[in-house]
């Protein structure tokens, strides 16, 4: 966390606070003048939602100088926070009791929560990834895993050939090869743990004393390969999480947009009062 970011955070938060205060004041004033504030907060809310949604669309226009992605993200984050307040004001803090409105509120809050979760992930996971030995591009991980497997096999075969013993080879086929070949399940994707790797390494370490020179060399390589495989799995799970939370967030956003437009049309065409 650098000074610069702290400063940015403070200023943005301040701006947001001022905005919310202003909003509150305006709505109070409207109510006191018998103006039906929900219509106006509704328009504002829709506008805000559109701006929030545009954040993703903007990426498709990277070649245009539309301001830095970082600035947009900041806008997205703080405007998102603001939209929640705006919604509370709009609904008067009640949970709407219409079907459409209920659905709308539900998807909005889900979107909001998914956004917060996503923010946490995008801030937390990178550090975890940076702690691993190497950096892997998500799309390449399958290929890399395959290479690791191939390499490990050749290493073991060669060792077996040189040593004429199958101690390592047996252990490899029974324990390591399956580990290197498998791709981890959903549980691991949610909560990656290195327990399996450590178990394997322990066993391999125990095995060492029975290995001859060639096998020892090979086992050293295996250690590295097992570690790399584990890193690959870790990267895959974490990076896929980073990529997939967006699935939820964006999908929900679409629902929110559809529902809110429908709600807006209804509200306007059914609006009571003069005219």
């Amino acid at each position, binding site marked *: 966390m650098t000074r610069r970011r702290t400063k940015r955070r403070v200023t943005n938060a301040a701006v947001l606070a001022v905005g919310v205060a202003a909003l509150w004041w305006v709505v*109070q004033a409207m*109510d*006191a*003048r*018998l*103006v*039906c504030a929900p219509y106006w907060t509704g328009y504002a809310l829709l506008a805000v939602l559109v701006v929030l949604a545009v954040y993703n669309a903007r990426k498709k226009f990277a070649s245009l100088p539309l301001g830095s992605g970082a600035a947009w993200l900041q806008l997205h984050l703080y405007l998102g926070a603001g939209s929640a307040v705006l919604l509370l004001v709009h609904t008067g803090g*009640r949970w*709407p*009791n*219409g*079907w*459409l*409105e209920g659905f709308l509120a539900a998807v909005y809050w889900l979107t909001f929560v998914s956004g917060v979760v996503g923010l946490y992930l995008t801030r937390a996971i990178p550090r975890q990834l940076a702690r691993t030995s*190497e*950096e*892997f*591009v998500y*799309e*390449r991980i*399958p*290929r*890399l*895993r*395959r*290479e690791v497997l*191939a390499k490990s096999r050749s290493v073991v075969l060669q060792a077996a050939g040189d040593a004429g013993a199958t101690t390592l080879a047996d252990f490899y086929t029974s324990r390591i090869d399956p580990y290197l070949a498998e791709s981890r399940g959903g549980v691991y994707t949610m909560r990656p743990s290195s327990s399996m790797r450590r178990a394997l390494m322990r066993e391999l370490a125990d095995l060492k004393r029975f290995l001859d020179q060639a096998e020892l060399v090979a086992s050293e390589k295996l250690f590295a390969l097992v570690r790399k495989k584990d890193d690959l799995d870790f990267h895959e799970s974490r990076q896929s999480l980073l*990529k997939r939370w*967006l*699935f939820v967030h*964006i*999908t929900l*956003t*679409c*629902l929110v*947009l*559809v*529902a809110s437009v*429908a*709600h807006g*049309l*209804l*509200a306007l*065409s*059914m609006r*009571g*009062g*003069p*005219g």
Partner: protein
Amino acid sequence: MRRLFRNENHDEVEYDRPSLPWVCGHAAEGCPCPLGPTRRGRCPEAPECVPARVGDAWQCTRPASRGGPCDQADEGFDDSLGGSGPTPDGQCCRVNRCRPTHSLRVRRGRIAAGAALFSLGLLLFLLGSPWRNDVLAPGGLTQAHARLLSPAKDPNRCAACHPGGVDAVLGVAPADKLHTTQSQLCVACHESLIDPQLALAAHGLPEAELRRRGDAALQQVAAIGLPDGVGNDQGVACAVCHQEHHGPGHSLTAITNQRCQACHAERYDSFAGDHPDFGNWPYQRRTRINFDHNTHASKHYAAAGEAFDCAGCHQDAPGRDTKLLVGYTQGCARCHDKGIQASRGEGLAVLALPTLDRAAITAAGEALGPWPQAATGDYDGELPAISKLLLAADPAARAALDRLGADFSFFDLDPDSTADGRDAATLAESLRNLLAEPPRGGHGALLKRAASLATIDAPGDLAGSLPIVMVQAARARWFGSAATASPAVSAFEKAERQPAGGWLIDDAGLALRYVPRGHGDPLLRAWIDLAASLDGDDADLGAAALAELAGPKSVGQCATCHSLESRGPSLARDFSGAPGGGAFVNWRAYDARDARRSFTRFSHRPHVTQPELADCSHCHSLDPSAGPQGGAYASLDPRDFVVQFRPLSKAACTGCHKPNAAGVGCAQCHHYHIQPPTHLGDDFALLPRPSRAESDSVSLPKRQPR
């Protein structure tokens, strides 16, 4: 080939192309083919090279960028990809086949779009389904509305309140439907409760009236301009305050204090604080029945040895929040009947023949026609009030009356005055005709005369079932040739003999008298109403008649208790509305049941349940120091009177009415919608005309004929 900083992971790799829509099917196994899917997302199934013929052999031409010629066993060699080296017929030995997949981003986009489309479709489907109303409604209706409106499944249900209903949403609503506003629809149902013409006006009052009330806040409003629709011809839409679709539990009438203060710019921080005190409320006019609480409490009840208990007269109205007064019979008769009986005396003279001076009349050059002997001599005797009123219908007599003055007495006539003589003759003539009429015209004749000056629509029982024969008999006796001997019994005795009241002939006084039937005698009421109602030219005629009929010495002494009130602009604030001009008599005491809805509301019921409030005097405490109120009733203005109660102060309320106790919201004690007084509701003749400019700004809704 030179390479620095070699690293397995990022050596020799192609660019990553996350933005491409298709991914080689082999990418998952980690060996995407260099060609990649076609733009349509198909696998090109292309050979890795086009073998070149060298001499008589085929040679692999796979470029170095893809691993070089495949005939030397290349690293990561994989049989699944095929053999190595060109086939004998010069084909490439390796053809990659895969089923390309969409890239992560494309899949994400599809899911999102799919979800959006699905939800949209679902919405449209529901709109077409029986659940349409449930989908459209932003929430449940209040119970009342829900019960009244057409069944939930009715496709037109929304249209009951929303002009055009669902069709408006779909944009297929007929234009005429859209021209009605929602408020009009509300009022259409609620017109029994609220005057459609003023329903949307602020406080249900025409703006002129609103301003006439001279509210400081309103002055300010006038300056800043009224909020949405207040006082303009649209009025304040119902929906501005009454918000539906918040479920059965929701209160439609709840309103925040700020909203009141949209117009009432004079801010009250709290009820206990700067909310003004009540002033003389609720004692804003004298009681219609002249009932002196002090004297009754201190003298009369004490004398009778009775406890002066409020509940004796003020009783709970069954099923209502108000107190009601008991009637005469239950409340007053016990003591007051005797007095009223006593006041009958020999009865009320209706027709009487005065004593006329034949000589004087002749001297005046007039001829006194046939006249009873007993009634000739020096001028003397009175014309009873009722006779005067009846004679006034005869123009000649009216002229005479006007000259002599409404309250003249024959005793005052001057024998030497020819004018007096002429008038006396005229009156005598007119009297004879009057006596002669009933036998021919019956009661109708009398009523006709009364009606000629009556200003009241429905005169009461003026004739009082006067027996015609009795009139004939009287004429016969008085004008008969055979002068009768002096009568055996006096009028007084006769009156004594008929306690139930009725008519009698007073031969001694040559008068036809009426004996009232007791309290609430219709004939007396009718004539007093008539007299009171007279104004304009007839004013002093009426005044004279009232003095006689309702004076302290009068028969029945009605006016001692029943207060007289004048009508007219000065009473515009009085909502007890009464038609016509002049004055009227409060025959009935105040009845909370026909009170109109006013700005302030107070319900006794919840209050008196509090033990300490059970005793009325907690709020309404008599003020013995207050003088007798009787005198004030001489005036016709109900607002000058003596308050016999100590002023009722906020302090009495603030004990309970705190923010977190009984509450202090504006709407708790104040109505927004009030019923304008009838004499405002119909036309505003009695209102001070608004100034030109004002009347422009004021546009009162025109009443369509129904």
